[in-house]
């Protein structure tokens, strides 16, 4: 406990860094997964292709990805971009399947109804299909966010400071409190982000909770 109290600003600084590194991959993963998920939902041909590719991406070990990306992207092995791109790839891998399933979860009679009253294809996607897929998309986003926040700690292995620093530093210096502080901080960050996502979902999708009075 003493260690924690003595190092509160270190923990605070690492937490902010950690969050900053995670936000971009989560947002990018979400944005990329919408067209990718749509492709997987819409056409049988692209469905197999897209889902196989994202499935394979998810099986690449993170350390291997850190080694693969720099030559492909022309960046330094130790660059933060390396971590952000890797986390984005995992986020896309998780989210795409969720988006495809979410779109498939929309009641076909409602889609028919939207067509019947005169929604064009583009508007129907943005104003009917995607909002109604919202609850399942949100479920996917929550999994993606929590997974990204926990996965980001491996960044320390390529020299990128975040909450993962507490693991390696605590291990090297044999300070158990430091390691535990790292674990608790990661869990807290994940819980707070998860809560924010749930609250945002409620604000954006008030219809999903209302039932017959």
């Amino acid at each position, binding site marked *: 406990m003493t260690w924690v109290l003595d190092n509160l600003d270190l923990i605070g600084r690492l937490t902010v860094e950690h969050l900053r590194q995670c936000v971009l991959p989560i947002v990018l993963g979400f944005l990329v997964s919408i067209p990718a998920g749509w492709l997987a939902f819409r056409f049988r041909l692209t469905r197999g292709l897209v889902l196989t590719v994202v499935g394979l991406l998810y099986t690449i070990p993170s350390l291997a990805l850190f080694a693969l990306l720099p030559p492909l992207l022309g960046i330094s092995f130790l660059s933060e971009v390396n971590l952000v791109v890797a986390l984005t790839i995992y986020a896309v891998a998780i989210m795409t399947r969720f988006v495809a399933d979410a779109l498939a979860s929309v*009641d076909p*009679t*409602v889609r*028919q*109804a*939207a*067509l*019947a*009253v*005169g*929604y*064009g294809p583009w*508007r129907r996607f943005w104003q*009917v299909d995607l*909002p*109604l897929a*919202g609850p399942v998309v949100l479920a996917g986003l929550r999994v993606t966010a929590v997974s990204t926040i926990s996965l980001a700690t491996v960044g320390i292995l390529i020299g990128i400071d975040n909450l993962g620093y507490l693991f390696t530093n605590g291990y090297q210096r044999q300070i158990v409190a430091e390691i535990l502080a790292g674990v608790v901080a990661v869990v807290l960050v994940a819980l707070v982000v998860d809560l924010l996502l749930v609250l945002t979902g409620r604000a954006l*999708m*008030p*219809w*999903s909770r*209302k*039932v*017959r*009075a």
Partner: protein
Amino acid sequence: MIEFRSVTKTYPDGTAAVADFDLVIPPHRTTVLVGSSGSGKTTLLRMINRMVEPTSGVIEIDGASILDRDPVKLRRSIGYVLQNGGLLPHHKVVDNVTTVLRLEGTPRGPARERALELLDTVGLDRGLADRYPSQLSGGQQQRVGVARALAADPNILLMDEPFGAVDPIVRAELQTETIRLQRELEKTVVFVTHDVDEAFLLGDQVVILEKGAQVAQIGSPSEILENPASEFVASFIGADRGARALRTKHTDHGTVLVDGRGRTQGVLVDDLVEDGA
């Protein structure tokens, strides 16, 4: 007026849903397409707003082929009522009603005014405007569905088994309302159902369909009941059984009519005038 001429619909797997179909649907009347499942009645209805495209043949509205119209614009110009209302669950009642107006670019304020008027028209309390569909009963949802179909004041109203999923009491209520609305607004209504009683109650013109949208008989309910065109029609409308098979029974106080279940349904009065309705 809506006209089908030699309309055919064959699906890629070779099934012929509709073969060489002809029909004239008169304006400002209710035409009911009735048949069991597989009779192609819903396919015919959906051809009118191009949700289903015919393989061959011509469909005209007021003399102009619908194939020359943009499908999305065409659909907005035709009211459509679906089973269970087919409401968008994430839109409030008022936004469901204004759907077509908003798609056509009507500003929010006037659209909302119009929606509230329409709730009156279909007999719903304006207080429901800001509820979500899931907070309404089945009958109320169905009325919202009708209000939405009427919002842009279309000449044509397509109704696809709209009352199939509500209980019999609410169904009877909605049927009465539909008749009232049609009289009041004089829309050309095309109604699809598998229920013969519903067809005879609502239809000025009833089209009885056999498998593959073969027309078994077209006529007013009276014409069909008085002169079924075939064994199929007689059996389909139940002319030989149940509530329609009436026979006379002589009693001390005059002649009464008794149905197939042996229940007395009415009294035969002598001065019955043939009105041909």
